[in-house]
């Protein structure tokens, strides 16, 4: 902590008494939030605690019903995002808002002022600008050819280039490897030392403890307290966030002794619908009562792996067998009938797996509606099932006839997982099951999966958070650009090793010898 005397202009943002209601929902209730100049301030809170609403107010998207916002000691009213940007506030969203067909430089500058573009000059200016913060960037590159981490750099630069001194980062680490996260943190610290203020929204407590100076905790729309990070530990923070004590360790039940092979994938090669090879000779096996984690950067072939097993994407070569019978080439419905359950949660969460504007009951029906006799939908049973899932998974919703689009992210994921578990599957493939979820909901999901594991269900867990993968899974398979770079024992491998495999180093090169962990 750097000691400094504070005068008014050292407070970058002061939001006082902010309240905002949407219909009957109180999203923000008398929130106080203050960010100093030159600090990294974490905003912590569960889903629905009001973080997004508060940040949307700060970036001028919503107007508060009550409350005052001061920027550098001067009261401001934001009528639109433009006003907020003019005050030097920049928002880096979780899902990038970039024009994919333009170059990085064009995205950053937002087009030049004059009639003609001066590409070279602009690129140089941007390169010099980015070096100031120690960021690496290829300004001439088309945005759709950039990696996720590079796209994020473009997003941050875009905001800085427009003159932002106060940055809001919404879960920036969700899509990065450990190495990339460290690089991002270096950049953020540099920016802080240059006098920028950073609001850092994250669910990962270790990141908050590592990076931030202060932390403000929100719970149920209220600001609970602000702490110096040095003066509080992670357990206390969680308690403040959730409102009660939470055990942070993830359970890992031992797999059963008499394991049978449930899923065997043999030299699987898959192309996506555009003909690009997305999986190359992938082989692995998965036993009953085992959780096999899949680690890898976004877009390393996880989606295609799920879809190939579920029968949605055709296999080019290779075999997938489930309980001894070959299922590659079978229709998705046939594979569902055999007890393979796949829940893939895409980035937009509602793209595949759910129908956004349909209600919970109709979404519960999605997987097994076809297996009842007759041409009519059997809604009565589905309603009962929906009621039960809502009750058992503690989904907070006004009712089962509520459209899922209006549920919060955590509840949406619970609907998917509830539906899948309800089919009593023998194999669960789950991708990004906790994406964007808060601690409490994430642990509910881990417990659900472990419960299934104890019931001898085989689980393929495609994850993002390495800490979780290491704690939850029995083994971890690492994918890099569609190839398996290693299948390792999750109890012994280190995060660094997995990180290196994610960026392409093979496990045998890492250790200097073949050291695959066998399945039996």
């Amino acid at each position, binding site marked *: 902590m750097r000691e400094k005397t504070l005068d008014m202009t050292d407070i970058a943002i002061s939001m006082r008494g902010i309240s905002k209601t949407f219909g009957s929902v109180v999203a923000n209730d008398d929130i106080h939030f203050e960010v100093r100049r030159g600090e990294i301030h974490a905003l912590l809170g569960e889903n629905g605690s009001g973080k997004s609403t508060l940040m949307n107010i700060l970036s001028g998207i919503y107007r508060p019903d009550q409350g005052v916002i001061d920027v550098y000691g001067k009261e401001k009213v934001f009528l639109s995002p433009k006003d907020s940007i003019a005050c030097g506030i920049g928002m880096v969203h979780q899902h990038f808002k970039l024009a994919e067909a333009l170059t990085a430089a064009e995205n950053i500058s937002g087009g030049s002022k004059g009639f003609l573009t001066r590409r070279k000059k602009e690129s140089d200016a941007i390169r010099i600008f980015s070096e100031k913060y120690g960021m690496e960037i290829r300004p001439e590159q088309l945005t759709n050819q950039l990696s996720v981490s590079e796209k994020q750099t473009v997003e941050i630069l875009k905001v800085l280039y427009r003159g932002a001194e106060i940055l809001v980062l919404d879960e920036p680490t969700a899509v990065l490897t450990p190495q990339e996260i460290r690089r991002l943190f270096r950049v953020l610290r540099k920016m802080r030392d240059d006098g920028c203020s950073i609001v850092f929204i994250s669910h990962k407590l270790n990141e908050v403890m590592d990076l931030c100076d202060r932390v403000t905790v929100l719970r149920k729309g209220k600001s609970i307290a602000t702490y110096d990070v040095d003066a509080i530990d992670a357990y206390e923070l969680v308690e403040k966030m959730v409102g009660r004590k939470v055990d942070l360790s993830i359970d890992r039940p031992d797999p059963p002794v008499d394991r049978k092979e449930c899923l065997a994938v043999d030299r699987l090669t898959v192309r996506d619908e555009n003909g690009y090879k997305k999986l190359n000779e992938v082989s692995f096996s998965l036993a009953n009562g085992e959780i096999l984690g899949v680690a890898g950067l976004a877009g390393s072939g996880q989606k295609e792996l799920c879809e190939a097993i*579920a*029968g949605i994407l055709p296999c080019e070569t290779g075999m997938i067998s489930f309980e001894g019978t070959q299922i590659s080439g079978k229709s998705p419905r046939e594979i569902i009938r055999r007890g393979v359950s796949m829940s893939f949660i895409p980035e937009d969460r509602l*793209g595949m797996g759910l129908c956004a504007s349909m209600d919970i009951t109709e979404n519960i029906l999605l997987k097994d509606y*076809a297996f009842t006799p007759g041409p009519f939908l059997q809604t009565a049973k589905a309603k009962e099932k929906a009621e039960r899932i809502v009750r058992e998974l503690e989904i907070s919703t006004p009712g089962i006839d509520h459209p899922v689009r209006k549920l919060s992210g955590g509840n949406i994921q619970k609907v998917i997982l509830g539906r899948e578990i309800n089919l009593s599957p023998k194999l669960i493939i789950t991708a990004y099951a906790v994406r964007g979820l808060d601690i409490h909901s994430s642990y509910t999901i881990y417990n659900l999966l472990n419960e299934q594991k104890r019931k001898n269900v085989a689980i393929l867990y495609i994850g993002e958070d390495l800490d979780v993968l290491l704690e939850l899974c029995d083994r971890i398979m690492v994918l890099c650009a569609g190839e398996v770079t290693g299948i390792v024992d999750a109890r012994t491998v280190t995060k660094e090793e997995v990180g290196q495999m994610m960026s392409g180093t093979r496990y045998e090169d890492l250790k200097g010898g073949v050291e695959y962990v066998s399945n039996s």
Partner: protein
Amino acid sequence: MFRIAKRDDLPTVYAYLIRAGSILAGLLLACILMLILGYNPIETLGALVAGSFGSPSAIRNTITIAIPLAITALGLAIAFRMKFWNIGGEGQIIMGCVFATFVSHNLPPETPGFLMILLMGLAGFAGGAFWALIPGLFRIYSRTNETLFTLMMNYIALGIVQYLHYVLWRDPMANGFPKIRAIPEQAHLPVIFGVHTGWIAVIIFAVLVFLLIRKTKLGYEIRVVGESAPTANYAGMNVKKVLLTGVILSGGLVGLAGMLKLSGAVYTLSPSITGNAGFTAIIVAWLSGLSAPVMVLVSILIAALEQGSQVIQIKLQVPSSVASVIQGLILMSALGGEFFLRYRVVKDSKDAKKGGV
């Protein structure tokens, strides 16, 4: 300063108030126009209402116009549920009529009426379905844009019916007047309560479409495919099959609407047989939020507007162009009102100016 904000949830009462308000606004605009042109707006609107609902015969005329409109809208809505933008209603109506006419002309003259009507109905369905299936297949197997494709199919159908009208099916008994032979007498739909029995078909199909969409597996699949094709795929649905079935049902119903008009009201196939129902039904379907029962009501209202404006042309010598503009203003306002169902205009408070930029 005013700005536009998204609405969250709107109580149903407000939604209907907004709809009513927008129609009122349309009427008001129409009044201003009439004043400028020197017509008495109260008299004109009065005549419009009286002409559409004022007497039993007016009501009969209105319902006769509403019948093909409602069934066409019901058909189009099935495609719209799948986000298959079928704007080929005109062509599908025409082809339904062409098929039905062909059947009626080629059955032995002693065929009993009910059998002839049944076969004509099937032919009408087949004609519309066939015309919708062509763009449907291209959409599914070569990813063509169905909006443009269905639109273009309208002009092809129109060309075909013109050719039939002037050349191929031209009635030699019509003293040189270009005209297709009328359908035989026993193919006319029976009349109940003064209106041809197409109105019973409207009720039946409104119920059937409602049940199809809400209660059957196929309807569920249609909605899921419209919501998200990847999700449908993931759930094991055969997306192509669902799309094809939906397109056939959609085009088929539209074709049937044409057959009902032919067999119930006009009796003769001509290039002007659609009376624009294929396009007007798009408005009906959207104004009703694709809900089957609402579509029936909205069809009657829009039919009333059409019937009423015909009456003011005759009674008050309002030119047909002005009558069309009045119709257009009211429809435009009604559609514009949908915007306010989703967005609202917020007035920014005065103190905003100080803070702002």
